[in-house]
């Protein structure tokens, strides 16, 4: 698709900024409707929301433990996965959980680990360990995407974002590795 060179293209009533104006608007919307009406259009019952939030915190904390197990077993991948682990810690915190420095959680022990096969021991080969982590991230992202339909708007938005981050992690742990 042809487009006019920037020098002569900046006037005209139909011309809109591709990013700046619109992004500003989105930012405003994000802020203005953020608090006061936090529960948005679909309000699940508070107890369901609280359950989902607590579960999300536990799940992220459990995921951090899996990262720690992989890092412990395969120090060579530590550099690569550390930044992803740090993001998962922030996810746990965003859901109200806490993660100790070693990865031990202050909340209850993760009753549901992100994937069925998971105990906190890492597979033997690096490649398998990363593939396992990726599968755990993806499975958790799927579960969160399913769960977000039942909760109030603001929590749903956070779940959607964290699920997206999980999918990104899964991508980086597999595709990005090649």
């Amino acid at each position, binding site marked *: *698709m*042809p*487009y*006019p060179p*920037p020098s002569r*293209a*900046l006037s*005209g009533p*139909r*011309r*809109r*900024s*591709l*990013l*700046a104006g*619109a*992004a500003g*608007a*989105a*930012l405003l*919307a*994000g*802020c203005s*409707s*953020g608090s006061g*009406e936090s529960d*948005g*259009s*679909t309000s699940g019952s508070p107890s369901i929301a609280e359950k989902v939030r607590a579960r999300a915190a536990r799940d992220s904390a459990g995921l951090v433990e899996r990262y720690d197990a992989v890092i412990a077993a395969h120090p060579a991948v530590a550099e*690569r996965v550390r*930044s*992803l682990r*740090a*993001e998962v810690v*922030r*996810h746990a915190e965003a859901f109200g959980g806490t993660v100790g420095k070693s990865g031990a959680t202050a909340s209850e022990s993760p009753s549901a680990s992100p994937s069925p096969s998971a105990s906190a021991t890492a597979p033997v080969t690096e490649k398998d360990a990363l593939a396992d982590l990726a599968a755990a991230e993806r499975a958790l*992202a799927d579960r969160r*995407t*399913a769960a*977000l*339909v039942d909760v109030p*708007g*603001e929590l*749903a*938005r*956070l779940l*959607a*974002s*964290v699920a*997206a*981050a999980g*999918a*990104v*992690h899964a*991508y*980086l742990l597999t*595709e*990005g*590795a*090649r």
Partner: protein
Amino acid sequence: MSEKASGKQELTALQEALAAEHAAVYGYGVVGGRIREGRRTEARSAYDAHRARRDALARDIRDLGGTPVAAAAAYALPFPVPDSAAAVRLAAQLEDRVAGVYSDVVRATGGERRRSAAEALREAAVRAVRWSGESVAFPGLAERAATGSASATPTA
């Protein structure tokens, strides 16, 4: 909050998302013209994905009794895009922007529309990282973006 107010919020969020998808479709047109051949297929499939989302949003808006916002005739690019590297940066920004509007759609809608918006957010986030190589902790949440991002290091 009243049914009416939430319906209006829903429509507003969907219109914002549609406007962003219009911009993304335009932007990927630019990307496609500049990006190196090795990544052209990827740009093409992103372009197609945004067109499909754009059409789905327009349908949703009509279903709610709204009139879908039209695309602009042209859009000012955020920076000059003379070469493939700039095209990749533009693509990453387009995806970030789209992720941001979908997170608002998730908040403002429910049911199937919300689920679909969450999917769209997820896809945009993955495409963003394919272009940029940079993972962010909270895709689509501008208010959490300032607190630092981790960078992963894909070899691609």
